[in-house]
């Protein structure tokens, strides 16, 4: 089973994507707790696209869901904006106090910690981000960096 959704890269559409992925994961039997985590990484990735990928130009974002033989959920997120490799962005300093804590960078951090595997490719003029989520043992193993 697989499915995909493509809409303009605007914040007002993010909810439709998370709903789509939630329904897909639900149909594949993922637990509620895992679906919450999946929704979070989707929101974070798509909001980044809406805010930063296209500057002032209009563009689309696309999400495709599938599962593999190991029952892992594979979420592929594609946009045609400027190159952005989530894997090479530096993380905020988590030891800083309130005064010195940066407001940015938390979304990327959450995606990196919560997704079980992440792949990034620049294909032509597109960013292709693949997030892999599995449905077992994740909560225990992802608590600390």
């Amino acid at each position: 089973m697989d499915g995909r959704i493509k809409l303009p890269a605007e914040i007002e559409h993010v909810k439709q994507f998370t709903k789509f992925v939630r329904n897909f994961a639900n149909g594949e039997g993922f637990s509620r707790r895992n679906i919450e985590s999946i929704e979070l990484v989707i929101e974070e990735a798509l909001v980044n696209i809406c805010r930063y990928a296209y500057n002032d130009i209009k563009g689309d974002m696309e999400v495709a869901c599938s599962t593999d033989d190991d029952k892992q959920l594979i979420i592929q997120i594609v946009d045609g904006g400027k190159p952005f490799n989530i894997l090479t962005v530096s993380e905020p300093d988590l030891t800083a106090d309130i005064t010195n804590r940066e407001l940015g960078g938390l979304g990327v951090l959450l995606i990196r910690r919560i997704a079980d595997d992440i792949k990034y490719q620049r294909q032509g003029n597109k960013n292709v981000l693949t997030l892999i989520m599995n449905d077992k043992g994740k909560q225990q193993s992802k608590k600390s960096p």
Partner: protein
Amino acid sequence: MEINTRKERDVTIVSVTGRMGEVTAPAFEEKMRKYIADEKIKFIVDFKELEYISSAGLRSILAIAKMLKDKNGTMVLSSLTGAVKEVFEITQFVSIFTIYDNTEDALSEI
């Protein structure tokens, strides 16, 4: 997202229900800014009924905390559960905020 507020002594208890994401977090931030503008500087933010928080929610909370620090105010948090607690742990917000198990404990300490 729904925000309910009550007052105990000089403490404003702000209870947030539902989801605090990209679309809803600004409403929380705006409400808190109004309270602060209204000279309220002691807060317990109760997350007992908060089901979901994204980085947008965290940013709002941090922005308010920075603001309160400049005014010698206090904001403690209470009753983090499930996915919300996990997000606070991943981002180490647990180490920059004082977090109580419930609002009663927070009230007796603040």
